[in-house]
């Protein structure tokens, strides 16, 4: 919603600066006077929360890097030293480890918000795609970060994931060796993961800049999914209305974060990661961090060959496909109606989609051969396969078809009419 700038420099210095580097104007137009739909609900606050968590991760990460040693013989010990001996290391390490989890909680809610309210639809396709890019970068960063403490789960998680690359035909082994820098996960791998784990957050910050730029061209979507027509009536200035709303949500979210950081810092971790990495002994049950579990379940759900693609490669393709499909989502959903408030049928399929995603996370945490809720014969594998099918069907079949066959509800004439009732 980039319109006419309302910034007026008031002092001699700001006038001088504005004609040379209009940075104050940029900030004013983007975060003070930016016209924002007046009906945003709390699902819209996660963008601000995510920006805060990116900053938390970068600041705590830079500090941890001052004490951490990326060496296979010293990494584990140096993390323990941070937790025990470094002044406030216990807090900063806990903020970083739990911060990653809270970052993912927020990003998943942000993404589900986008899916429900159709935030990916024209003219916001690029905005959505940039978001998926950020999500992929986050996953890469988190994966490499989890390797750094060099515990058993760090090591074996890295082993399993890098071995997935080996499933690629012809080039798999060469790429895997190239990633490892050796013949197994080892010192070289740890060292380069540290380097890249330090780099990627800054790339994320750069793409976030593009994401916000792309957001500020059409402006925010909103729960009604209808565009702002009259900025005077349908919109409010970002400050103070949404700085306060975002600020409140950020504080509440940080309070929950603090409970984890201070009172249960290890509850999201895994006991095996308090054992130093041992290349000769595999933990009985390797699980990734919770935020990867749905994709881990999809990976393991493909236990059968699909034509020339064997089960292992099939699993890898399905796992990456589950994310890649988000890139083309704007063109798969054929409905012009953004908000699911006005899509009575699709709404239900969306709710099942959320349940399927959560269910896949549950399957990912369990042994595939165990029985669901003790039901004889009903393995977690079968549940994971069913939910994987639904996951892909939602994008490939349900959204394209429902957009054509569904009759959406009547939408209000304008945001103002819906919110204030004085059309």
């Amino acid at each position, binding site marked *: 919603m980039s319109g006419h700038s309302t910034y007026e420099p008031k002092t001699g210095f700001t006038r001088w600066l504005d004609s040379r580097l209009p940075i104050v104007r940029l900030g004013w137009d983007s975060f003070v006077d930016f016209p924002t739909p007046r009906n945003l609900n709390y699902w819209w606050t996660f963008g601000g929360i995510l920006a805060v968590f990116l900053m938390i991760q970068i600041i705590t990460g830079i500090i941890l890097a001052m004490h951490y040693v990326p060496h296979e013989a010293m990494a584990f010990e140096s993390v323990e030293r941070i937790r025990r001996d470094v002044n406030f290391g216990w807090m900063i390490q806990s903020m970083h480890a739990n911060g990653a989890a809270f970052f993912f909680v927020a990003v998943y809610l942000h993404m589900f918000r986008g899916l429900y309210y159709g935030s990916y639809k024209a003219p916001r396709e690029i905005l959505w795609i940039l978001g998926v890019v950020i999500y992929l970068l986050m996953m890469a960063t988190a994966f490499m970060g989890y390797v750094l403490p060099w515990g058993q789960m760090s090591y074996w998680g890295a082993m*399993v994931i890098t*071995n997935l690359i080996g499933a690629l035909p012809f080039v798999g082994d060469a790429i895997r060796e190239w*990633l490892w*820098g*050796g013949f197994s996960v080892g010192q070289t791998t740890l060292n380069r993961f540290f380097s890249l784990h330090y780099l990627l957050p800054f790339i994320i910050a750069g793409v976030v800049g593009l994401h916000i730029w792309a957001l500020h061209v059409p402006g925010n979507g909103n729960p009604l999914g209808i565009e702002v027509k009259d900025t005077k009536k349908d919109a409010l200035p970002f400050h103070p209305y949404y700085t306060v709303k975002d600020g409140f949500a950020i504080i509440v979210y940080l309070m929950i974060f603090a409970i984890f950081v201070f009172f249960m810092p290890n509850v999201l971790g895994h006991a095996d990661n308090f054992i130093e990495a041992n290349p*000769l002994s*595999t933990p009985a049950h390797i699980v990734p961090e919770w935020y990867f579990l749905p994709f881990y379940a999809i990976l393991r759900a493909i236990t059968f060959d699909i034509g020339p693609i064997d089960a292992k490669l099939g699993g890898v393709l399905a796992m990456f496909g589950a994310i890649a499909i988000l890139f083309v989502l704007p063109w798969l959903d054929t409905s012009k109606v953004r908000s699911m408030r006005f899509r009575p049928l699709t709404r239900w399929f969306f709710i099942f989609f959320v349940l399927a995603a959560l269910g896949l996370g549950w399957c990912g945490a369990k042994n595939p051969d165990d029985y669901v809720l003790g039901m004889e014969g009903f393995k977690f594998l079968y549940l994971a396969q069913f939910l994987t099918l639904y996951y892909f069907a939602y994008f490939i079949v349900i959204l394209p078809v429902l957009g054509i066959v569904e009759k959406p509800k009547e939408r209000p004439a304008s945001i103002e009419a819906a919110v204030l009732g004085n059309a």
Partner: protein
Amino acid sequence: MTEENGAPGVDGQEPSRRDFIYIAAGGAAAVGGGLVAWPFIDQMNPAADTLALGSIRVDVSPVLQGSEITVMWRGAPVFIRHRTEEEIAAARAVELSALPDEDARNDNLPAGTPGFDANRVLRPEYLIVKGNCTHLGCVPLGLNANTGDYDGWYCPCHGSHYDTSARIRRGPAPENLPVPDYFFETETVVKLGLSPEEASAAGWTVSENDGAVA
């Protein structure tokens, strides 16, 4: 219609001098870019010292028949099992058709060699294989804990069973545990990292092998 200069040679016309310059400059930039990029990509491949550790010597004389050891080679485990007569007989009695992976997976032999037990050992009593499951790289359990349903190895991660020739028999692993390059320097000293042919070519003493079938 003729092109004086500058315009690309469309409609089957003669390309101009400028087209040639564009293509030549673009080609040179692409090749130059590739040449510059390669060192920055290749630096991530195993370094010289990593490769130098590619060959180690193991004395297998303390490994009693019916036991096994695990040695670290190239940062990963290698299983060396001193097999009993029964284990050898069991491995040799298996039909090729009973194997999910019919390839010998022996770095000393060309790909496509059938996976008979004789093609996976140099001396039948010593079975030497890399110790990472071919599924996702976990270390299978062996005589120390659980030999699985085929008396070889069992991978606890996703339930792959290997037989006494370390061939996959059941479970998600797609391939047999691979046999590394190795040769016997003496009756009981194994050198990992070089095949017998490479070793003799490089001037090493290679002890006679009695089990290899090419």
